[in-house]
């Protein structure tokens, strides 16, 4: 005797003795909507059938919606020891079904991502930081070897690369350096004006702008601009070369990536940073002069004479030396992050970001150290 156990929109389960028959009809696709099959699975959990066959004579279009349902059905039937007559399925369904179950599986280690305890995470961060610093020290050592080789004329170094990097890190950066430096000079003048006007000492605005730009802000602002602009570009360029295996290709022909890629960038920044710093100093002083001339009745002549009398060359030299040091730090951080980049697009993005962060942190730390040294030396 045949009994109907479950009937729904697109399927019907009937029992005849030990044999179950699942009739599928209509369109079984995600686009048309897959019916709720939970009543069917509930019925199968309590059935005593031995064998399940399919009647697909009224089945129309189907897609992965039917396949995922059948995979679940087979798993349920296997748990209940119900044999399945797959031959009664359409040929295409059967083929895909065989493909998904017979495709040779690659072995993979089981992956769990349990949340590490706080102490373990701190430990991981400490180990990672230690590894990064070790790599960084090794990298700096390699740069010194590269520079030594360069002095001996033995570095694999293309001067055309150096000139290209000089152009990219120098003239190409002039516009942004000009804009930022003038604005910084104007801001310094405004800030000083608010306080000095109270004492009728507006003329000393020139001292503050001149000294501020020459000793600190000229070098610092140039470094921040170059860290964001050039340091990030170095990390992205070398990171992409890492992804494309260009760095590996250099190593296979016994050319050191330090000599070939890092030295031109490092030397370019060592040369351009002090020059850009001097340029930024003057742009900042001009920005201050504009504020003084237009708002405070201090003529350009008075302003520049005041600066000439107060800001000696030593102050400019200190700024230029700082810029040179910052240039080394920016190039080192950018190239280090680029050469230690992973082999994916997201790793390149991470390398560029961390190059900028590392550069700015190093710039601030170096600035503090140089300032303290100058204080101790009395310059």
């Amino acid at each position: 005797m045949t009994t109907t156990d479950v009937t729904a929109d697109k399927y019907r389960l009937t029992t005849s003795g030990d044999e179950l028959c699942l009739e599928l009809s209509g369109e079984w696709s995600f686009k048309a909507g897959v019916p709720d099959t939970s009543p069917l699975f509930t019925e199968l959990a309590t059935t005593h059938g031995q064998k399940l066959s399919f009647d697909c004579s009224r089945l129309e279009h189907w897609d992965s919606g039917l396949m995922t349902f059948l995979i679940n059905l087979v798993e349920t039937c296997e748990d209940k020891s119900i044999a399945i007559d797959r031959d009664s399925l359409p040929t295409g369904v059967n083929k895909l079904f065989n493909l998904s179950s017979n495709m040779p599986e690659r072995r993979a280690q089981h992956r769990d991502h349990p949340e590490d305890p706080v102490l373990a995470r701190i430990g991981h961060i400490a180990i990672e930081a230690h590894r990064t610093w070790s790599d960084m020290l090794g990298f700096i050592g390699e740069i010194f070897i590269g520079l030594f080789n360069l002095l001996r004329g033995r570095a694999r170094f293309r001067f055309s690369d150096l000139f290209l990097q000089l152009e990219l890190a120098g003239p190409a950066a002039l516009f942004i350096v000009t804009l930022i430096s003038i604005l910084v000079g104007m801001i310094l003048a405004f800030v000083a004006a608010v306080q000095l006007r109270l004492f009728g000492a507006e003329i000393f605005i020139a001292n503050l702008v001149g000294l501020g730009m020459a000793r600190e802000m000229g070098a610092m602002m140039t470094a921040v601009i170059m860290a964001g602009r050039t340091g990030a570009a170095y990390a992205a360029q070398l990171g992409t070369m890492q992804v494309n295996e260009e760095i590996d290709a250099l190593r296979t022909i016994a050319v050191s990536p330090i000599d070939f890629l890092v030295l031109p960038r490092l030397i370019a920044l060592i040369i351009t940073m002090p020059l850009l710093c001097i340029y930024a100093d003057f742009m900042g002083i001009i920005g201050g002069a504009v504020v003084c001339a237009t708002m405070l009745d201090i003529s350009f002549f008075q302003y520049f004479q005041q600066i000439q009398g107060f800001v000696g060359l030593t102050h400019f030299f200190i700024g230029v030396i700082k810029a040179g040091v910052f240039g080394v730090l920016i190039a080192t951080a950018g190239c280090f992050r680029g050469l230690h980049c992973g082999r994916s697009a997201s790793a390149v993005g991470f390398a560029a970001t961390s190059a900028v962060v590392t550069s700015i942190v190093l710039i601030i730390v170096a600035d503090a150290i140089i300032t303290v040294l100058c204080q101790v030396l009395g310059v």
Partner: protein
Amino acid sequence: MTTKPHLRVENLTMAYGETIIQERLDFSINRGEIFIIMGGSGCGKSTLLRHLIGLMEPAAGKILFDEIDLWQTSDQERNRIISNFGVLFQSGALWSSMTLGENIELVLKEHTDLTDRQIAEVVAYKLSLVGLSRFAEYYPSEISGGMRKRAGLARAMALDPDALFFDEPSAGLDPVSSRLLDDLILELRDSLGSTIVIVSHELASIFAVGDNSIFLDPTDKTIIARGAPQMLLETSQDPRVISFLTRKARLK
């Protein structure tokens, strides 16, 4: 009664700016056919594929899917047509910041209203079709090139597309993996009835799976032979086609 072709290309010209890559291209692909675009390196095979999948606009001519001109229809309609394609790029082109599972999941979330549970089931099923069901949690950078290609295929199949496009599917694969991929392509065509377009110069794959083909030439800048690959091998009189299909180099 003649059936309408699934894809038809009419007098297509492909160009980068003023430089013409190929011109006077005319061919049609029937539904459920495995169609091979072949030719030597630099002849414009991949460029043609980029035109077929709507990534590049023709300099002249038409590309019609089910008789709808891809570039004369509205943007909305074009996007609807393109969303019915699955594309396997040469390197797999998996999104590197996502796991294999998330790569497939994103496609399903963007184009279907499936529940999270249904999406998880489809992801597991698609990965099982390419033998990577245990790698759902892995990132593309953690698996081999061949596995990336298979995962790319699983992503291409995520929406059960009408048409699948493969750019050099066998490139960089070992012979066994290459053969497995060929078998998979044949099984997909037989079970789903999808139209499959393959850009390839791997002879073993071309003969194993191709129903029909065209041969592009970089000098003539057009199709110089067409037909089933085996038939071309046996009957073509063109020395360029013969030397390509028999792997005989001609030194001038």
